[in-house]
């Protein structure tokens, strides 16, 4: 073993290190909330810099771990997302009893995602998956004095255990038919016998569960609504993003031979997901729940992008690009919700009436986020969504593209509901003026900057596209 392995695992090492630092500080017992907040964020920001540390790409631990430029990029995106979540949760964490634990859990989960993405082996994949989801389930319960928080946690852990059990059953059958857990072997050995297809469908449903693909999505809204905002944000952005990365690699690579099956599965589910997500989002009043359904609808678009396997690197590139944009857009929205929820406890659209008059910054950021999610230029979401559809159209699946385009209308409608509440409606009791902390400002600026500039960074998509070629 040489040290280059450690450098190749730089993000994982950094996260582990931070977790242990926090653990020791917590055991030490003297550090206060502010200190935890600062030290963690500082360390996280520093570890972002690791991206520029040149690493060796390839497989390590006999396929248990793998790095590539694309993976590093994805990891840095997710890490950044976590930082944004953390920064914008300042007001919530300030008075929270378990800041260190919060960070340890959330970073463990992130670590799990990193391993999951980097795995070339179903065992590591499964371990990463569990490492990423069990702590999150616990995190859902972190609003300890809220009834719904524990309900959300219960729904999360039980349903995710159920789904992963089903996934495992599939994995075991795959193992039975091929004798290996290694992706490379699998990609050749999975040829599409009935048993393999059945096993694949079981595995697929596990992915679909995590990605909240309709009809595997039913847990999503409840969990999002009940959890603390930061956790909701983490679930809807980081967790989903990581899952999307893994999903597309797994499909394209491991189950590449089953393309004929999963292409149609994706197409059908994408349509259902978009429509159902949109229809449910229409009538939500709680913002977290609203964003749950909106993110379900977004997943529908993601699936369309994934389905465009004809131009693989375009598909992967556009998915990565979309996730990057989605990080900024959704986190901007959740940042605003987080601040307002932490300070006033208000989370419904009704409460946001007249927000622009009292808190123009928050309202503007929210609007930007919503426009980006709705895919309105010049925000980045426009490009993200269009590239997904472009990738999806590479198979010539026009009905799919048409339905997706028409769904954009419905989604615009409900995004505009919030815009309308903030900018147009008058409120009898508007929210008071909120002063933002430095960290929140930083997070918001980052989000706004990302939303506005990503589409115009000429080289960015090209870079992503190029590194996507190597999976």
């Amino acid at each position, binding site marked *: 073993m040489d040290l280059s392995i450690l450098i190749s695992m730089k993000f994982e090492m950094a996260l582990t290190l931070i977790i242990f630092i926090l653990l020791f500080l917590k055991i030490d017992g003297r550090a206060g909330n502010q200190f935890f907040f600062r030290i963690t964020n500082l360390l996280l920001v520093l570890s972002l810099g690791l991206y520029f540390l040149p690493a060796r790409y390839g497989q390590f*631990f006999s396929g248990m771990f793998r790095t590539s430029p694309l993976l590093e990029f994805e990891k840095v995106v997710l890490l950044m997302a976590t930082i944004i979540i953390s920064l914008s949760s300042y007001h919530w964490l300030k008075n929270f009893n378990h800041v260190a634990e919060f960070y*340890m859990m959330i970073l463990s989960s992130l670590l799990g995602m990193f391993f999951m993405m980097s795995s070339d082996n179903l065992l*590591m994949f499964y*371990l990463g998956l569990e*490492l990423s989801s069990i702590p999150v389930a616990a995190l859902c319960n972190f609003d*300890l004095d809220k009834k719904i928080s524990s309900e959300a*946690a219960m729904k999360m852990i039980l349903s995710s255990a159920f789904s992963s059990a089903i996934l495992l059953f599939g994995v075991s059958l795959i193992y039975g038919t091929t004798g290996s857990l290694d992706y490379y072997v699998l990609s050749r050995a999975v040829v599409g016998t009935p*048993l393999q297809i*059945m096993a694949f469908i079981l595995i697929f449903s596990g992915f679909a569960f995590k990605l909240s693909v309709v009809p595997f999505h039913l847990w999503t809204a409840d969990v999002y609504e009940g959890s603390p905002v930061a956790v909701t944000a983490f679930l809807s952005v980081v967790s989903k993003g990581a899952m999307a990365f893994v999903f597309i690699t797994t499909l394209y690579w491991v189950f590449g031979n089953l393309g004929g099956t999963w292409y149609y599965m994706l197409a059908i589910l994408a349509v259902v997901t978009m429509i159902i997500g949109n229809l449910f989002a229409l009538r939500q009043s709680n913002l977290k729940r609203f964003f749950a359904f909106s993110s379900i609808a977004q997943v529908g678009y993601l699936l369309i992008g994934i389905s465009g396997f004809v131009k693989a690197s375009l598909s992967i590139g556009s998915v990565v690009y979309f996730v990057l944009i989605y990080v900024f857009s959704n986190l901007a929205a959740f940042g605003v919700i987080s601040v307002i929820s932490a300070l006033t406890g208000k989370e419904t659209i009704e409460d946001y009436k007249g927000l622009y008059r009292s808190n123009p910054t928050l309202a503007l950021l929210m609007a930007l986020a919503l426009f980006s999610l709705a895919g309105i230029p010049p925000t980045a979401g426009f490009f993200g969504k269009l590239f997904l559809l472009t990738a999806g159209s590479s198979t010539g699946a026009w009905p799919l593209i048409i339905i997706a385009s028409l769904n954009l209308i419905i989604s615009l409608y409900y995004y505009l509901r919030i815009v309308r509440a903030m900018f147009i409606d008058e409120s009898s009791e508007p929210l008071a003026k909120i002063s933002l902390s430095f960290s929140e400002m930083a997070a918001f600026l980052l989000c706004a900057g990302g939303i506005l500039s990503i589409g115009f960074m000429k080289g960015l998509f090209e870079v992503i596209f190029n590194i996507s070629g190597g999976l």
Partner: protein
Amino acid sequence: MTVSSFIFYVLAAFILGSGFLAVTTRKLFRAAIYLLFSLIGIAGLYFWMNYEFIAAVQIVVYVGGIVVLIIFSIFLTHHVGAEMERPNRLRAGFAGLAAFFAFIFCSLVIYKNQFAVPDQTPVPLTVDRIGMQMLSLTEHGYILPFEVVSMLLLAAMIGCIVIAMKLPEKTS
């Protein structure tokens, strides 16, 4: 029918029977015990397959750990002896039918599948071999998963502590 197969069928009946009872009995405490039986039966199955180590782990972790944990939680949340609510008829009916037909289908697919014919020499499953391989960095080494699982256990532990231990509210 050999003795070995006889033992297998007995074990299988035991596992399935107690497993079935575990999910149908209306006494919560009994359900836990049936589960325990079922798990022990599975350990027996492992023994039967000559995977003693796994069987041992099964008994230690499941029987000694998880079931105890479950029983603890039953004590914490339940009046001993109280019967549980009947499942919703419709749902039970649907679930039963669905599970049954899924089982039939699944079995058929498995039955029809031509599994590869084994032609390799089996590796003896000894504890030291497992230990070596578990901590090995080289080919077929499981050091990385091992570490990951340890992180998972750590995280789960912290999570449990935070959730289950209700600390007195800090005055701030």
